[in-house]
């Protein structure tokens, strides 16, 4: 009988992770997942902005087919009544559940996260989400601001919590229910951080002393960059701490010291996210479902951290479009753990030493629009057919292609001397 699916999607996370070779970041829990997964090093979003990217990979269609390039249309009304990936799993006997930010909220998901089409029960949104852009960041003068860089004392936050902490708690609650009911589930968990504001528990700053933080390797606007290609990072400029710097439009630059503070807080937010993922995967162990649950870990797009003199996403640069993408498939990317053994024990980024290499790695250039057909194939469902040239009238098809065949580590991707793999099961 098909495996469960735990689909983790992170807002604005570029591959700043140990398993993607970043030497500075502390991401032990995501690295532990990667150590038992197939990791794609060259995965790209179809558009580097939230709603269009999410609607694209959740329907398996490109933006020119969803006709969503902004935030203000719902594909079923505006372009075509395309089935979504969760809807397809729901139609194939799965209980489908959404926690946190999976679809972008608002018009683009019909103010309902596309419920009831995509989800079996009304999607969960953390109550703390509504305070996300409030003045909750304490400035040097002790007053509260709506800053970009926003390390906080969680106990001082409204409700004494943060959205991603609430999302993890709800996801764990649902895992326990699914375990009891013994129902096959597709649980999507959408984390908000490191999307701005970079608001995270202040203790994570300890992991990244400012003296260890450098500028981007190329913090200047390239000479031959066409002006149309440049993203003037307007949302960053609107934050109180950036506004106070009076930076010129459109090219800035931000003061070096502040650039390093942004980068420091992005890293801290990634480690905060890693703790949430660690708690969630630890709970999967606790309910004994790690051996029959596929775990997908990805993001909706990347984020510029000063490269090319840019911040945020909103461009076609690699730093804005490249995302982490990994698939944990018990019995395929890793041998099932012996009964009762833990697969994802929680690892504390404040004390955990050492990294872990991905189990399998592919350098192949792949796209988020391929996640839908890939996950269908991994779960043993019929793979949706390829879309015809024009597919506005086609309810179920995909403009991506399944990348399961890349799970074999082929000749040109193995290091010298390692035996090429032509049998996925044997290899893993």
């Amino acid at each position: 009988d098909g495996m469960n699916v735990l689909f983790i999607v992170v807002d604005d996370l570029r591959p700043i992770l140990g398993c993607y070779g970043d030497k500075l970041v502390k991401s032990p829990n995501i690295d532990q997942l990667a150590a038992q997964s197939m990791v794609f090093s060259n995965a790209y979003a179809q558009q580097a902005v939230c709603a269009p990217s999410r609607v694209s990979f959740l329907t398996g269609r490109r933006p020119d087919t969803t006709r969503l390039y902004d935030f203000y249309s719902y594909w079923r009304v505006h372009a075509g009544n395309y089935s979504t990936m969760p809807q397809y799993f729901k139609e194939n006997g799965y209980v489908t559940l959404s926690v946190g930010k999976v679809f972008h909220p608002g018009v683009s998901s019909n103010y309902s996260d596309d419920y009831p089409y995509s989800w079996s029960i009304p999607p969960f949104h953390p109550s703390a989400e509504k305070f996300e852009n409030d003045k909750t960041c304490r400035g040097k003068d002790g007053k509260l601001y709506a800053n970009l860089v926003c390390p906080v004392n969680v106990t001082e936050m409204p409700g004494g919590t943060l959205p991603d902490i609430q999302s993890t708690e709800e996801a764990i609650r649902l895992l326990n229910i699914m375990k009891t009911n013994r129902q096959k589930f597709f649980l999507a968990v959408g984390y908000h951080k490191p999307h701005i504001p970079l608001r995270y528990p202040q203790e994570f700053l300890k992991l990244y002393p400012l003296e260890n933080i450098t500028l981007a390797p190329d913090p200047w606007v390239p000479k031959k960059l066409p002006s149309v290609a440049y993203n003037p990072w307007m949302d960053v400029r609107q934050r109180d701490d950036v506004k106070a710097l009076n930076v010129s439009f459109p090219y800035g630059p931000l003061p070096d010291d502040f650039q390093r503070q942004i980068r420091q807080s992005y890293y801290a937010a990634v480690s905060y996210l890693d703790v949430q993922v660690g708690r969630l995967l630890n709970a999967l162990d606790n309910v004994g479902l790690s051996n029959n649950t596929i775990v997908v870990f990805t993001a909706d797009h990347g984020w510029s951290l000063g490269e090319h003199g840019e911040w945020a996403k909103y461009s076609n640069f690699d730093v804005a479009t490249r995302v982490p993408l990994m698939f944990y498939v018990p019995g395929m990317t890793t041998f099932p753990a012996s009964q009762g053994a833990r697969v994802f024990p929680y690892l504390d980024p404040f004390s955990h030493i050492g990294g872990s290499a991905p189990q399998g790695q592919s350098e192949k250039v792949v796209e988020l629009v391929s996640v839908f057909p890939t996950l269908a194939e991994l779960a043993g469902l019929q793979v949706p057919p390829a879309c015809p040239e024009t597919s506005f009238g086609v309810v179920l098809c995909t403009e991506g292609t399944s990348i399961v065949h890349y799970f074999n580590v082929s000749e040109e991707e193995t290091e010298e001397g390692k035996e090429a793999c032509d049998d996925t099961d044997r290899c893993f």
Partner: protein
Amino acid sequence: NEEAVAFSQYPRPADTPQWNSDKPKLKDIRIMGYSMRTADYRYTVWVQFDPNSFRADFKDVHAGELYMVETDPNQDYNIYKNASHGWLLKKIL
């Protein structure tokens, strides 16, 4: 063909940065940047776009970018104007 390719795109309201360049509403989109990524290069053409017909006019190219992964992994040296790329335009089409 076998080569693995990833396509991205991004809309713009104008050729030069303005307050809504990051997130233009559909009605304000005038240019679409289509990117094609392979293991060897990144090729982008910024072409005229009509938000009413949703048509991109690849004959009306506003600007282009070409970066070679091996020699310029950070995409800092745009060689679009120095290289012949007619075949790339055909390919992205």
